[in-house]
Structure formats: C-alpha cells, structure tokens
C-alpha cells in the first residue's frame, strides 16, 4: 500500500457522517413521499380476468392427468380455440396492446409520479453533495482494489497518485445509494424492498405483458399430452388396501 494519507477529523465530522445521515434520512423521506403519491389504482376487469385465466390454464396444465380425457379436451378447446378461446389473442390486438398502454393517460401519470419521486430527490441530493462536499477524500475502504476502480471510487478528484482505496465524497454518495438498500428494507419494511434498480427494470419492460403470457400458456396447453392417471389408481388402491388389511 502506498503511504497513508492523513485525513482531518473534521472531514469525518463534517463530510462523512453528515453525508451518510442525510442519505438515510432522504431515503426515509422518499419512502413516505412515494407512499403519499401512490394512487390506489383499480385493476380493470380485463387485466383481472387475464390473470385469472392464466392461473386456471396453469392449473389445467398441471392437473391435466387427473381428469378424464373427454373433459380435458373440452377444456383445451375452450381455452385455445382460434375463434373465441380464452387464451387466444388475435394478432393485431397483441400489437395494439403496447400502444394502448402508452395512450392510457392514467398509466402514464402513474409512471410519471413514480419516476419523479425517484428522480427528483436523487438529483437534488446529488447536486447538494456536489455543491457542499466536492473534492474531499472522504473515506478509505479497508481492502485494496485495482486501478480500474479509480474512476468509480475517486469520482470528482483528479489525483492519479492517491491509492485507489481512498474514496471521494461523491463516490461515497454512490456507495451509500446502493449499500443502504438493506438498511431501508429493515427500517421501512417490505414495501421498500422493490428498490430503484428493479423499478428501472420495470420501466423498460412496462410491467406485465398479458398478451405474451397468454400466448405462452396457449402454446404449452396445445402441446400437452393427456395421459389419464386414474386407471393406475385402481391398482394403487389395491396395493393400499392390501397393506391395510395385512
């Protein structure tokens, strides 16, 4: 390790600790703000029904062998026929679904709120950190790292001679951003468990694509082989009774 830097205790008292405390407090504040802004949306009938259809189709798939083949075939036709089967989604409708979601103002509004509650405090804190604490070497991680991490850990100070394990205040902010997630889930409960990264992911995927999962269920129902399990049951019952009578 290179020669140790001597850090002023004032940096600890006026940078490291306040920064961390503020991060925690902002996390808590954000949680309550997003809770306030969350509009309780009623799921519409179509989405509800699609969810239920999928559950039922899965049940049919997993329990298929327990009902007579006549009943199974009737149900399969009911689910997958190409006219009005429950799982059948017409081609054009499937494409429209995405467009529909974009055009739904409620949905867009909700997304906006979510994003705002996430983005505004984050950029505000970042600006605040930048403004107040720029250019400090605030901390030192207790394990060595390679040069590659310099950009990550020493964001905001341009000293190529300082050992990589020293962390600039701005990078400490980022470390906090990711590392405090566990703490939040402890103090705020499970609702916060859905963290920012997951939310980002959802933004890309736009939630749950009903048409696609319906199509998946339909395909897997179509290829299922029905093999009625009940005829075997008579033999098994015989065995059970033999054991019982013995």
């Amino acid at each position: 390790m290179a020669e140790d830097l001597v850090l002023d205790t004032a940096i600890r008292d006026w940078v490291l600790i306040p920064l961390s405390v503020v991060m925690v407090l902002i996390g808590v504040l954000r949680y309550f703000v997003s809770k306030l802004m969350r509009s309780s949306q009623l799921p519409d009938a179509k989405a509800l029904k699609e969810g239920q259809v999928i559950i039922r189709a899965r049940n049919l798939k997993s329990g298929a062998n327990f009902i007579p083949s006549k009943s199974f075939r009737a149900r399969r036709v009911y689910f997958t026929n190409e006219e009005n089967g429950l799982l059948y989604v017409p081609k054009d409708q499937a494409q429209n679904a995405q467009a529909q979601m974009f055009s739904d103002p409620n949905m867009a509004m909700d997304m906006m709120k979510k994003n705002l509650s996430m983005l505004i405090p984050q950029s505000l804190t970042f600006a605040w950190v930048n403004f107040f604490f720029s250019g400090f070497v605030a901390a030192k991680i207790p394990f060595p790292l390679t040069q590659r991490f310099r950009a990550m850990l020493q964001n905001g100070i341009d000293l190529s001679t300082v050992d990589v394990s020293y962390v600039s205040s701005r990078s400490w902010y980022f470390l906090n951003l990711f590392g405090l997630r566990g703490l939040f889930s402890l103090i705020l409960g499970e609702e916060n468990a859905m963290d920012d990264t997951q939310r980002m992911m959802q933004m890309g995927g736009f939630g749950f694509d009903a048409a696609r999962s319906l199509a998946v269920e339909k395909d897997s129902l179509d290829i299922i082989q029905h093999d009625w399990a009940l005829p075997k049951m008579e033999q098994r019952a015989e065995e059970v009774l033999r054991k019982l009578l013995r």
Partner: protein
Amino acid sequence: MVGAAEEAQLNRLETQVDNGGGGAWEYLCHVRKLKARRPDKVLKHGLSILNNAKARSNLGAEEWTLYEQVAIAAMDCQRLDIAKDCISVLSKKFPGSTRVGRLEGMLFEASGAWADAERAYERLLQDSPHDQVIQKRKIAMAKALGNIAAAVEYLNKYLEIFMADQDAWRELAEIYVSLQMYKQAAFCYEELILCQPTDPLYHLAYAEVLYTMGGLENLQTAKKYYASAINFTGGKNTRALYGLCLCSSAINQITKGRNKEDKESPDLQSLVAEALVKDYKKKAPAKLPLVTNTLKSMKLIS
C-alpha cells in the same frame, strides 16, 4: 382449509386464552390468518382487548383490524349492538371506505334488512365493481333468501372473471348437486380437481356425482375416482369404500349378460369389502352383521 397442525396450535392457544393465560391477541391473529370461524371466542377475547384502553392502544394500527374482526364475530353471535358500535367507530375513522361499507351491508344482512343490504352492496359495487367480497356477499344473500337461481346466476357471473377461485367453484358445485344438475356439478368438480389434484375429497365428490348420473361409462369412471380417493386417504375413508362397493356392484349388474372380458377384475372389490368389514369389526362391531348382509346382497363377499 386448515391444516391439522395449525388447528392443533389454534386449539392450544384457545385453551390457554380461555384459562386466562394471556396471548389473546396472538390467538385472534391466528384465527384471522386461518380464517377460522369461532365467533364466540373471538367476540369474548376481542372485546376484552377493545375495552381495555391500554391494550387497545398497544396494537397501533392493528386496532382497526381488531374492530373489524370483532364486528363480524358479533354479527355471527347476533350481538348486533356490539357490531353496530364497532362499525360506527370504524366509519368515523375511515369515512367512505369500501371495507367499512361492506361491514355496514353485513349488519343490514344480520338484522334481516335484506333490501337495505342489497342497496348497500349495489352502491359499493358501483364504486368498485370487482370487489370479490361484496360479490360473494351478494351470492350468499341470494342463497340465504332461497333464491337459488339468482345465486347460481351471480356465481356464474363471478366465476366469469374470477375463474381461479376454488371456493366459488365448490359452492357452485354444491348448489348444482342440490339442484340435481349433475352434469354441471361434475364440471365444477373437475375444475376443483384441477386446482388441487391430490385432494381426496374432491375426487370423492366427483365420483359421487358420476355415480349418481349412472350409465356404464360414468360408473367406471366413478369407480376409478373412488379408487383414487381410497388411495389418497390410505383406505381410511369409509365413504369412499362404500362408494366403490356400490359402483362395482352396479357395474356388475350392467355387465352381467356380457362376455367375460368386459368385466372388471374382482380383486379390488373384494379387497374393499374386506377393508369395510375389518373397519366395522374394529370400530362398530354391533353393526357388523348389517354390513356383511349388505355386502352379501351386493355379491361382494361370500
């Protein structure tokens, strides 16, 4: 459905609470979680918490859940005065809430004001048309009033959307059986078997419906389902054993004149008959001759 272990724990807690051992809140939570219906106990212990200002405030936000639980229990016990008090506390705390509105509707129901209840539910459904509990209340009300046709209609409408709801399927199956609409009932039981492929009770009920419908094919299928019920219960379900006996004797009667290969293997039926006899020998020896005579007349034992 309540698992045996959970029920045992619940009973243990109940005796503990009954004997003044504390843990009333834990007991109430348990009842709620298992959806057990023990209104008298819930009313007694819930009220003792609610009447104790300190214990009540210890619950924090759970206090209101307890009010709801006690209100429902009070309605079960026809203590409408208590229910009314609880509901008025809740509606003061949460004005305009659907959940409280539901309770108010139930209070109307409990006091027999059917028209008022109907109106209340209708109003709630306008605000939240997909509220499962309210729809179920409406179904239950129709059934309680003896308006079975309406109950069936509501249930079908409900299942149109919530088609993965097992309890609703079961209710519908039972109503269909009571209306002797066996085909429809069989469909419902098939649906239930799909939901829980290893539940012997559904197999048993399905077999019974098939047996009642009659016809060789149905009887043979019924026999298979009786067999699977026996399999899942380990041969301890007397009803399944009897059912299998009846089935085989009915099948034997139908296939009497036919050639040999159509006949079922006699192994299973004699085993079942034996198992029945053994069961009666052990548990009700006084009725043994009755059983042996019946089985003899069905030509299942000699």
